[in-house]
């Protein structure tokens, strides 16, 4: 099977510590601590985890931007650490956020610049650029300077830039961050289309519904380590559905919720106001039957509905990650 790789991305035991300068006095930071996984051809693979969990660091190690301290990376059968030039020709990366384009150039000029850095032949270059602009829906804005683009247009331009070398593997680091719901939906359908056309996609996101909607398989990492790996259905089996109780009440139950959250048998509680009602989702630590207990506790708020519920990806995420923040003492890049 030459040329075809069942697993275009194979990460083995990746480990990375950031060493701070002596002058800064900060301790070294173990960002990724032995992560292994592989991504199938044409699938959308999700890397989830709290802030500072090591997602971006992992993506950088898989995209030649960062050399791991330990472990190996195989990209389309090539050595992802040593064979940099060939790997770079066949992958690309979009990082969420506004930066990363030349603001005083037009969209087209930006694409032309990057096309040349990928050594795309001049013949056909303009046609390629037109095609990319069309894919991301920026044909009309092609000759406007990027500084006049909206946030959503910039994000789509980032994606166009990342498609310039027709990569077989596309890394998307928080591709919908800061986008309004409608634009985010467009970006998601674009991602699905790209995967449909045979590209292998690895993405990170903080939006669980997005991961649930897009991803074939997921790895959840916390503090640099994998805490869950598999399809959404497989991950859901990790939390039995009798563990989730949902209570819908007329009145705001926040004082009871506050009390419950410190109880030892509770993994997580949160309340949301939906259409004038208060919807409380309670994740229990064990399979203990607390339905009647909770029924009594919540009765004073006027229960509209109470019962067990299927776990969502968000429930699983919370139970695996444990709800604790990962960012240490506020030092940032």
């Amino acid at each position: 099977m030459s040329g075809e790789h069942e697993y275009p991305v194979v990460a083995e035991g990746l480990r990375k510590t950031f060493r701070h300068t002596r002058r800064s006095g900060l301790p070294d930071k173990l960002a990724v601590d032995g992560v292994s996984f592989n991504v199938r051809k044409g699938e959308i693979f999700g890397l989830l985890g709290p802030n500072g969990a090591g997602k971006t660091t992992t993506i950088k190690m898989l995209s030649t931007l960062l050399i791991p301290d330990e472990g190996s990376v195989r990209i389309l059968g090539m050595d992802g650490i040593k064979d940099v030039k060939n790997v770079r020709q066949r992958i690309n990366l979009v990082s969420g956020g506004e930066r990363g384009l030349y603001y005083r150039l037009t969209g087209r000029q930006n694409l032309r610049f990057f096309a040349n850095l990928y050594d795309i032949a001049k013949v056909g270059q303009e046609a390629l650029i037109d095609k990319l602009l069309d894919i991301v829906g920026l044909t009309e804005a092609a000759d406007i300077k990027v500084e006049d683009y909206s946030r959503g247009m910039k994000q789509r331009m980032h994606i166009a830039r990342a498609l310039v070398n027709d990569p077989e593997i596309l890394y998307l680091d928080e591709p919908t961050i800061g986008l309004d719901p409608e634009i985010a939906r467009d970006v998601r359908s674009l991602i699905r289309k790209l995967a449909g056309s045979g590209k292998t996609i690895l993405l990170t996101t903080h939006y669980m519904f997005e991961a649930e909607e897009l991803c074939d398989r997921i790895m959840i990492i916390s503090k640099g380590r994998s805490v869950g790996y598999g399809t959404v259905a497989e991950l859901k089996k990790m939390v039995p559905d009798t563990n989730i109780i949902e209570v819908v009440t007329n009145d705001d139950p926040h004082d009871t919720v506050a009390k419950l959250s410190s109880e030892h048998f509770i993994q997580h509680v949160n309340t949301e106001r939906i259409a004038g009602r208060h919807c409380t989702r309670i994740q229990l630590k064990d399979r203990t039957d607390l339905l009647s207990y909770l029924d009594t506790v919540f009765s004073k708020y006027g229960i509209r509905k109470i019962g067990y519920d299927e776990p969502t990806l968000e429930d699983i995420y919370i139970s695996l990650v444990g709800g604790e923040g990962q960012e240490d003492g506020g030092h940032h890049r």
Partner: protein
Amino acid sequence: MNVKAITAAFRQQGTQFLADPQWIIPSIIAPFMFTVVALYMYSGAGELDSPIVLTAVLGGGVLGMWGNMLFSSGFTITYDRYNGTMEPIMLTPTHLIDVIAGRSVWNVFIGMINAVLVFISAQLIFGVGVSVADPLLFFPMLLMTLFSLASIGLMLAALFVLTRASYVITTILEFPIYVFSGALFPITALPEALRPISYIFAPTWGVDALKTAAISGYNTPMASFGIWFDVLMMFLLIAVYIIASYFLFMRIERNIRESGTLARY
């Protein structure tokens, strides 16, 4: 050498330059002012097309271009870092040095425009033409001198990243060329022990070649070997600077891949 990437970076820099008029100040107006000041200072010293005035104009021009080159080199990588474009560039198979080189070539281009401007305005402001003895030799020499400045700029662009102290270095480096290149006063005025520094400095040979081409009868200890010796020395030194830059940039790319960022300030 990746000509396509160099050309692309040249165009990117050029388009950006034209879209942002503030760049006109360091890259065109400043070198021009240098020259005009030099002209005024020396115009009492003799006829306007006398060697001493011409020397001053040349010296001023070279210094102005040096200032511009230094400023652009110090700024170029910082710009991509803050702009967030360093990562997308690093992601491509193109080496960073080719992108920075393309921008340096743009600086050479601006330098040439500068020189033409200076010659035209010397004519207009001072009436008397600043006549160049051998224009056919002068402009190629100017181009080569600019390339020698650009190749130092390339090397410095890399050093700036590795040392983190680009502002300090820019300021410190602005002066040695005043002293060692012979642009302001002949290097024969330097103590014997310091002269070797001048000789490993490619622009010194450029300044010498420019004077040889511009002033008939000009001669210095360096010129006694003839203008082609200047050219040879420039060639050699430019090659050395570029090779040094190449290794520095390899180191930078390695550093970035190890630490995840460039040196932080």
